[in-house]
């Protein structure tokens, strides 16, 4: 039988407006009204939402040949441009995903880079002040990702304008793309303007590198090599527009995700100061003997790791994972016919009470030995699961450990607005922290802290 259609759809648009306003509530409504399988309508695109451990496991274990990631994300095509990522065949994507730079053996070098980039951001902070969490972590992760994934010299070309242009691209992922990603709307115009600006910026970088000779010779980096490849007729094999698409796609997966998680990790530690103190104490003692972040970030930092995992559970950066059904997908007595989309929501899964007792409560201790709630592979899914589980998950965890190892030993933070006022903006498919999202910081004075602790 077919999955039943969720109530409340509008003519033509279906549940699109609800998706653009309250997506998480919409997904919960499917579970409450239809059970573990129910259908949504996004402007004619039928998405069958699977919830519950069993149905999610079936989704995550399905093969690429049956459930395809391509075509499931129409709002991404204008951001990446044609000929990049989702246009490739599953086999090409498989190869592309084996990004060498994410291999375990490279992690130590990456950790060093991330610690240094965090220090460079801190150098701009001074002794005390107020910062915008979205801007701060967006800028930082733009530098760390480009340096680790693309090249150290390329990173030096980046300015704060890059993260601002990137923010415009991320904001361009409005679900109205399900109607048509090229509608003449302000949000899509801003997206296309941002993409053109990115091409301009990168063209400038490549011209400078060509003039200085850095693009040939020994200092060549990934993009220099790609640019130098020619077709038989002498024209470039990869025009700058396409390389810009590669840059955007390489940065995209690790940017808003890591940046948002960093912000939420900090916000939750400040909302729950007893856990905040535990993390700072842990870091102080781990690094007391002068250990390097590049060494320690690859090892266990249990309190910090649990805090990151809990931020990921409560605020997963991706709230809907989708696949296109290539041939009929059967689950129990249901059939999802070819051509429809199937989806799983990490935002729902991560708060299912049967898997996560007291699911709305912030409790990093749920990952301690004996409880290990993240061991539920098909329920704790901030990174997805199965063969398409985020390939950057280990890199992201290491990156967050390196950032906070550096940041929290130098500065103390406090919320600069009411604790409940921090929230995500769900109006776009790419979830971002909603502004304002301010925090105050102050350079730590270890002596004063020690005196205070004694007085207590």
């Amino acid at each position, binding site marked *: 039988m077919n999955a039943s259609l969720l109530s409340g759809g509008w003519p033509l648009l279906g549940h699109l407006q609800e998706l653009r306003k309250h997506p998480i509530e919409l997904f919960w409504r499917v579970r409450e009204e239809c059970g573990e399988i129910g259908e949504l309508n996004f402007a004619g695109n039928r998405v069958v939402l699977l919830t519950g451990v069993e149905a999610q496991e079936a989704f995550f274990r399905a093969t690429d040949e049956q459930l395809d990631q391509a075509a499931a994300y129409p709002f991404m095509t204008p951001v990446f441009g044609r000929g990049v990522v989702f246009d490739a065949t599953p086999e090409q994507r498989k190869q592309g995903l084996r990004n060498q730079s*994410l291999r*375990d053996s490279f992690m130590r070098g990456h950790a060093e880079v991330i610690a240094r980039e965090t220090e460079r951001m801190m150098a701009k902070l001074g002794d005390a002040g107020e910062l915008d969490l979205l801007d701060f972590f967006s800028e930082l992760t733009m530098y760390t990702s480009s340096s680790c994934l693309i090249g150290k010299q390329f990173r030096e070309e980046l300015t704060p304008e890059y993260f601002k242009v990137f923010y415009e691209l991320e904001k361009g992922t409005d679900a109205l793309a399900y109607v048509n990603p090229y509608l003449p709307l302000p949000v899509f115009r801003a997206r296309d303007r941002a993409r053109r600006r990115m091409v301009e910026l990168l063209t400038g970088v490549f011209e400078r590198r060509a003039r200085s000779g850095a693009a040939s010779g020994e200092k060549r980096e990934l993009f220099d090599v790609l640019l130098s490849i020619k077709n038989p007729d002498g024209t470039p094999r990869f025009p700058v527009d396409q390389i810009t698409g590669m840059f955007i796609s390489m940065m995209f997966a690790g940017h808003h995700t890591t940046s948002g998680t960093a912000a939420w990790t900090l916000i939750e530690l400040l909302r729950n100061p007893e856990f905040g103190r535990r993390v700072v104490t842990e870091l102080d003692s781990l690094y007391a003997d002068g250990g390097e972040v590049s060494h320690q970030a690859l090892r266990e930092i249990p309190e910090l790791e649990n805090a990151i995992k809990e931020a990921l559970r409560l605020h997963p950066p991706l709230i809907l994972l989708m696949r296109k059904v290539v041939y009929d997908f059967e689950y129990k007595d249901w059939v999802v016919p070819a051509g429809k989309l199937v989806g799983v929501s990490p935002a729902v899964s991560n708060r299912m009470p049967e898997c996560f007792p007291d699911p709305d409560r912030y409790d990093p201790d749920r990952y301690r030995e004996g409880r290990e709630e993240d061991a539920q592979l098909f329920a704790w899914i901030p990174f997805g699961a*199965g063969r398409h*589980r985020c390939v950057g*998950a*280990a890199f992201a965890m290491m990156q967050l450990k390196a950032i906070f190892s550096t940041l929290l030993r130098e500065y103390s933070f406090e919320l600069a607005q009411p604790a409940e006022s921090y929230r995500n903006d769900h109006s776009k498919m790419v979830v971002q922290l909603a502004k304002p999202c301010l925090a105050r910081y102050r350079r730590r004075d270890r002596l004063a802290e020690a005196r205070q602790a004694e007085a207590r």
Partner: protein
Amino acid sequence: MKIRVDRDLCQGHGACVEEAPEVFALDDATHQVVVRNESPDESLRPAVKAAAKYCPTRALRLED
């Protein structure tokens, strides 16, 4: 000591190879783990346990 690999989960990160190179390798063609030694010596148990623990996709299970 018996090692179980969940083929649906392995993505070839190679964390297990770093932890226990005597036991695990990566297959260049499939980009998945190869268990070189199905019943490794007891002395390798801590390394194999670490491999299972640090596998980013939790594709390895250690039975008995």
